[in-house]
């Protein structure tokens, strides 16, 4: 196995183009998969020394997050706290301190587990993904990218994420078996705009109920353009339960998750509702 440790994005892309090699970010997924034999790369491109990939900054109306930003970096970032609250919340409970220090947002997408904590907030916040290869560069909405199989070509680098700055209120909640080191059994992220007590552009994303995290169209329709009150909340609860029922079908976890999602959904809205000033 070959091991590359490039210092720039250009070098990384060049190596990816010429050698048969897999990108390595923090390694919290890849190192395990290599040990179990699930992945047997013939080469590794360690992105750890490409420092530009760790940047978190604001440019042209977007919050830009480099793919190598760790969950610990994001969870401590003022910019993330102010502009992508749901993502900030997800970073507080993901894994453990040791995992958060090592695991990256890019790796979370690269691994793309159904329970990946970073993806529902990014979906709800309308994030776009910046992809690069030696031959091509594109910016795709995350929701579109998650529809692709395979997710990425081997030579494609996740350069970063762009979250539009739209004064969204957002929230995230997850259900795990315990508080630390718990893979999500279910996760919900919500983002919306509030205009004079009316909610607009509601986006709800669910994790751990399907093959990959997804945005719910129907929830968006049921909940957008309405007044933010108790009735609105209960309508959301009913609809989210219906979606979970449909998504899980006859799976063993279905009855449990259908009930649990109501609590997780309410929790995800907690921060929005208290900030939004309604008495729910």
């Amino acid at each position, binding site marked *: 196995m*070959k*091991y590359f440790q490039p210092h720039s994005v250009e070098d990384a892309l060049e190596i990816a183009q010429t050698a048969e090699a897999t990108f390595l970010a*923090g*390694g919290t997924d890849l190192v*395990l998969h290599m040990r179990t034999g699930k992945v047997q790369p013939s080469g*590794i491109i360690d992105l*750890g020394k490409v420092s530009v990939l760790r940047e978190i900054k604001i440019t042209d109306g977007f919050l830009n997050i480099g793919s190598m930003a760790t969950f610990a970096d994001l969870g401590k970032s003022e910019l993330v706290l102010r502009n992508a609250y749901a993502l900030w919340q997800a970073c507080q409970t993901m*894994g453990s*301190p040791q995992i958060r220090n090592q695991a990256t947002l890019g790796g979370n997408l690269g691994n793309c587990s159904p329970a990946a904590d970073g993806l529902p907030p990014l979906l709800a916040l309308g994030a776009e993904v910046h992809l690069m290869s030696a031959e091509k560069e594109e910016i795709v909405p995350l929701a579109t990218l998650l529809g692709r199989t395979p997710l990425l070509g081997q030579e494609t680098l996740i350069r970063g994420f762009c979250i539009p700055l739209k004064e969204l209120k957002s929230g995230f909640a997850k259900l795990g078996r315990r508080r630390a*080191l718990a893979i999500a059994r279910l996760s919900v992220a919500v983002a919306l705009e509030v205009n004079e007590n009316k909610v607009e552009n509601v986006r709800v994303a669910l994790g751990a109920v399907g093959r990959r995290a997804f945005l719910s169209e129907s929830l968006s329709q049921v909940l957008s353009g309405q007044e933010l009150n108790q009735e609105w909340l209960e309508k959301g609860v009913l609809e989210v339960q219906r979606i979970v029922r449909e998504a899980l079908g006859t799976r063993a976890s279905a009855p449990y998750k259908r009930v649990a999602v109501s609590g997780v959904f309410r929790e995800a809205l907690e921060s929005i509702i208290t900030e939004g000033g309604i008495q729910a």
Partner: protein
Amino acid sequence: MIEINLVVNEKPYTLNVEPSERLIDALRNRLGLLGTKEGCGEGECGACTVIMDGKTVNSCLVLAAQANGSVITTIEGVGNRRSPHPVQKAFVEVGAVQCGFCTPGMVLSAKNLLDRNLKPSETEIGIAMSGNLCRCTGYDKILRAVKIAAEEGAK
């Protein structure tokens, strides 16, 4: 084999490692630093915790090559019998040590917290220690020891 340079417990080393070799293997097998323990090999237990560039990581999930250029502290680099670190002293005095297999990782997580935060709240202590499992103590004395160490250190 890849050549890597790293500083472990304030000593510089140049090592030749396999690309798939984990940091824990390099520390234990190449440097003989056996205080770093492997409890699960998959990031769940924290027994393999070391401090890398000021942050705790699970050395079972980091490749040795990823540590190229890093500064690492293992349990061997914290305190000694003549002058134990306040965390080590508190662990012994409070009775936070039973079988001791989790202890090196626990001490490093606690030390790293106190390096960053001289007056941690109970919640902050809880979060800082949440990546380290102990099957013996029930945690209460461990959390108490960290609190006492923080109070000692803040004096």
